[in-house]
């Protein structure tokens, strides 16, 4: 006999090890390729660094809610608090635990904890601030992800590859803005109307705002910007003539927890 059992197991074991190492080597040789890559179409919007300026002065509460609703609609975000089918109604505490939020509103002292003075302008105190992923230039979520399922694109967008995510939720612990959500259960029955332009999710993966990368690739502005009646502007920070730069020149802006060094790319005019 050519090889005995012991030898066979040794060879089989070694080739398995090499096989695993081999895939790793491919990833090292061609980094940045992901399973769910977005291929930009002709006429897609491009930038060196996408940023968002939210003009809270121009954003009334109604519009803010419409922005959040538009975002959640075009991304098939489930609504556990108000399910489409009354039979699916959950106990409110459970629905709160399962919540998935990409874009939502918060009061100043929650959106900017520690920054609220005891006496502040009444208007600002009750203002509904739109909060979302800040697409940090120095994102802790990307730093902690063990599989590069969340990564930063060249144009600054912090992206999610939901096909690669192992659901360890390290990114949720890492995000200092609470901008990430996890699919604690099958979200599909809780999606109001299936929007064909974006995939629904499976259980066990993390998701968040992507600055509407899939819409930019089609030459469209992010859904919230489109719905905001001019209260949100979106553009290239590196382009001096862009509208966002114009706004940043003209108005004093604040950012959430900028002292953490994350360099958030969502600016607020208050």
């Amino acid at each position, binding site marked *: 006999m050519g090889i005995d059992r012991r030898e066979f197991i040794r060879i089989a074991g070694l080739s398995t090890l090499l096989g695993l190492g081999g895939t790793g080597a491919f990833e090292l040789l061609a980094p940045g390729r992901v399973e769910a890559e977005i291929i930009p179409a002709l006429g897609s919007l491009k930038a060196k660094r996408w940023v968002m300026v939210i003009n809270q002065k121009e954003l009334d509460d109604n519009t803010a809610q419409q922005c959040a609703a538009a975002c959640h609609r075009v991304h098939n975000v489930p609504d556990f608090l108000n399910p489409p089918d009354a039979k699916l109604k959950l106990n409110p505490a459970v629905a709160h635990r399962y919540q998935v939020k990409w874009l939502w509103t918060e009061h100043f002292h929650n959106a900017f904890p520690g920054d609220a003075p005891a006496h502040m302008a009444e208007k600002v105190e009750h203002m509904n601030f739109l909060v979302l992923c800040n697409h940090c230039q120095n994102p802790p979520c990307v730093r*902690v*992800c*063990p599989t*590069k399922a969340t990564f930063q694109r060249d144009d600054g967008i912090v992206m999610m590859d939901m096909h690669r995510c192992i659901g*360890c939720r*390290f990114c949720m612990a890492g995000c200092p*803005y*609470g901008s990430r959500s996890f699919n604690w259960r099958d979200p599909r029955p809780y999606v109001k109307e299936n929007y064909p332009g974006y995939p629904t999710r499976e259980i066990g993966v993390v998701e968040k705002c992507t600055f509407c990368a899939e819409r930019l690739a089609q030459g469209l502005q992010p859904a919230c910007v489109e719905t905001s009646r001019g209260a949100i502007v979106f553009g290239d920070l590196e382009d001096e003539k862009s509208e966002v730069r114009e706004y940043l020149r003209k108005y004093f802006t604040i950012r959430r927890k900028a002292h*953490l060094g994350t360099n958030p790319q969502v600016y607020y005019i208050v």
Partner: protein
Amino acid sequence: MLEKALVGTKRYYGLLAILAGLFALGFLFYLKQLNFGLGITGLSRDVSWGFYVAQFTYLVGVAASAVMVVLPYYLHNYKAFGRVTILGEFLAVAAVTMCITFITVDLGRPDRILNVLKYPTPGSVLFWDMIVLNGYLLLNIVIGWNVLECERHSVAPPKWIKVLSYVSIPWAVSIHTVTAFLYAGLPGRGYWLTAIMAPRFLSSAFAAGPSLLILLCLLVRKYSKFDPGKEQIQTLAKIVTYATLINVFFFMCEVFTVFYSQLPDHMAHFQYLFVGLDGKTQLVPFMWFALVGMTIAGLFLVNPKLRKNETTLAALCGLVIITTYIDKGLGLISGGFVPNPLEQVTEYWPTVPEAIITLGVWAMGFLILTVLYKIAVSIKEEVKS
């Protein structure tokens, strides 16, 4: 040597059957979790890690504490510990196996776990944790098994085993340091963002692990012909004493920095744990019990009378195990997530399925521990006769 695990008393088989039953029950609930998602746990958008990650963190400490018997023996030639190193190493094997299982159970997509190898990401602490934990498991299996085999045949262990034993010493420190770094490097979590996290992890590990080892030694003595030794237990007791006191001291250092600096986002977590926040006080009694209990245990253990009496020693070791478990299990993870980054309070409590799955993993670990200890003790008995 495996044959030693197959023959035993009725009591041995009974214990194995109970542990296997609990494991099977946990596994059934795990199947349910796989089907429904992690929504069957008490976890939420705000508290996204809980019971599973807590057990993992605690058990990394138990595993790391094997170094407390290995180090004196190999580096200081403290011969007495030669009798118990195997117990420490096999405890580490069982503990690390539980750690890896808890991490797997906590994943939303366990089917993709190999992505960590497929897309190696050295920037992520989790990547390194995977390496050090698996490495430590391998080290302890190889060292423990070979040393035991040599003891059985009354020959000195080969030189390479000694080299591996030296390697395992800093490696043990590394597993708990890297685990602490999972938490201590996150900019938005005030409770964890502290340089003393890794030292605190090590001190509580060196308190809890040897405490468990003492209890296991007492059990081994009671139920087998192998006596781990009075001196060995007393030396371990001294390690427990000072590790517990150092752990309390480190905690006080943390309290000073947080409350003298008055940084709100660091204080909020301590307030939640020790007095409650926004009227939410679920963990307050547990945390006070842990802090007071740990301090009392440490102080009582200083008293030689209480330490030398094996009954009081066992009780105090039990107290150390429970209090460090509350501190590191319940408090550390929940405390870090409450309040959330928007300063809102969502409390967390494990659900029944979550607790049963947890129990199943512990049963699996103790099943492994029982089998390994059975082998070790049988060999020791064989050598003695």
